[in-house]
């Protein structure tokens, strides 16, 4: 059953080569064995039961009344503004850097990967303590200081998505071809690099937006009422509505992310590019790699 699935799936690239057909993901050794089902079912239970319990607690009625609550529009508006600013700065900073490093400084790639991991392991609470100490006064008095710092937090996700995207096609050859045909740098970036990075950039965007819409630590300690902070404050007024609001945010982000990866996957199959899945990128050509 699983073996039939694997062959019938006709993975792009894999189907063409002898390597591909002999992939060891066949039923006998590696297919959907019982233990795999067990793991997935247990994981499903662990992740879905709490959602179900919260849904039952909130009740369907709460979802309708979320948007009418005081402070909802204001806090969501602030969070969306922060998300837009953060995303624009993150992409404007990370895209050129990642492309440049891939083309000119491939040896720096590991170092960059290491640096962009730091914001995940360094506690945000330490960052905000230091930030409030060093930030100039005119920035401290606006919530947009948060957006500037969220860029640092979003860096790991954005960099990894873009890096995965850049690895999914032969950037160097395409750029050289474009340049030898007389295209300038701007034209090459816009007409050659960007179209190949659509999925990666969308992933980076959604991960960044998800991060900003969910960030609580820094916003609450900087004393601005972003959406997650509002949810907590409002929780003291009405528990069910606050839970409904956070579930709503969770589902919407998930749906957007799902839509993007599905569109991206279809695009990749049509163009023969690699499938970009947030952090990783599937190889196009399984034969070449071994």
């Amino acid at each position, binding site marked *: 059953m699983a073996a039939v699935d694997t062959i019938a799936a006709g993975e792009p690239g894999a189907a063409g080569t002898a390597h591909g057909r*002999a992939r060891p993901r066949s039923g006998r050794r590696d297919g*959907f064995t019982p233990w*795999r089902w067990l*793991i997935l079912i247990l994981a499903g239970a662990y992740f879905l039961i709490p959602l179900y319990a919260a849904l039952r607690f909130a009740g369907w009625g709460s979802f309708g009344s979320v948007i009418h609550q005081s402070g909802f529009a204001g806090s969501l508006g602030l969070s969306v503004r922060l998300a837009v600013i953060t995303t624009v700065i993150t992409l404007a*900073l990370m895209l050129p850097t990642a492309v440049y490093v891939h083309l000119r400084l491939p*040896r720096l790639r590991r170092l960059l990967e290491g640096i962009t991991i730091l914001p995940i392991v360094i506690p945000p609470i*330490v960052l905000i303590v230091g930030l409030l100490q060093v930030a100039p006064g005119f920035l401290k008095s606006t919530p947009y200081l948060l957006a500037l710092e969220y860029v640092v937090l979003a860096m790991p996700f954005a960099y990894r998505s873009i890096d995965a995207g850049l690895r999914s096609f032969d950037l160097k050859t395409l750029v050289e071809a474009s340049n030898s045909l007389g295209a300038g740098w701007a034209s090459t970036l816009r007409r050659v690099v960007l179209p190949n990075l659509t999925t990666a950039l969308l992933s980076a965007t959604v991960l960044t937006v998800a991060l900003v819409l969910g960030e609580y630590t820094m916003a609450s300690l900087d004393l601005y009422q972003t959406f997650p902070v509002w949810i907590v404050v409002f929780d003291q007024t009405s528990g069910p509505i606050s839970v409904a609001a956070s579930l709503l945010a969770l589902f919407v982000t998930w749906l957007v992310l799902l839509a993007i990866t599905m569109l991206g996957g279809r695009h990749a199959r049509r163009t023969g590019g690699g499938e970009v899945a*947030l952090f990783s990128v599937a190889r196009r050509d399984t034969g070449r790699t071994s």
Partner: protein
Amino acid sequence: MDELVSAGAPEFFSDSGAPGGPGAAVAAARGLRRMAGVVPFGVYMALGLGAPLVAVAIGAFQSPNGGFTLGNVRIATHGEYLHGFAQSIELSVVAAVVPGILGLLIAYSIWTAKRGSILRQVAITASGVFANFGGVPLAFLFIATLGSSGLATRWLNDLGFNPYQHGFSLYSLSGVVVVYMYFQIPLMVLVILPALEGLRPAWREAAANMGARTWQYWRHVGGPVLMPSFLGCVLLLFGSSLSAYATAQAMTSGTIALTPIQIGTFLNGNVVAGQQNVGKALGLGMVIIIAIAMGIYVVLQRRSARWLQ
């Protein structure tokens, strides 16, 4: 081999040593000019990441009137704060290793599902969303599930097993670990998937052709290849659970001493006079713990690199 390792998740220290020998000066000049492309990124990280850390490190040794003192550090390493560090580390180790192993198993199950399948895409996107979930909403999910009158608690009770009569509490360290797993496992799935892509199907075939059983393949091929990435990812999870503030605050509300919460109280202004900078000393302590964890990671990674040879 190089591709394999870089396909893995975190690589903290690269060995891109500077070139030496004849013409090194010319090469260095050219190298400097080529570095120009990464200057904006470097400057941004220096200001957004470097400067706050330096400020914390300096503040840790400053008395309220600006003079040098070791008093903050002395307070931060004694009594309730020392206890906070101990519990934070204990919690983070458990909340890194357990989700690390479970996340690896789940990631492997997802990875072997066929490319582009619904299961795979739902699981991967869900990981992206859940990895950023936390705080009061997450705490609430679990209070509704495993709280003393939660849904799952009642189910278990109907089955004749009440976890609260067997020493479990959602508000104890073990309960907090269960909650942390909700964002730690997805994070693990996200960061370990690229490493799994590094496992070549051909190796599995080669091992099978030579008569290796599944466990032999994992013992001698798959395991050693994955080990460096796995360790890196577990370190990342350690950092992630050490820094969790919102969830910890919502779950424990002071019942368990944890360092991030203690730092938060300094920012909220609940400070004994003369101790304003103790929070910074605690922050410095957290950074040092992360640095030590990274050091351990490097040592372990070297050792596993030796297995690989």
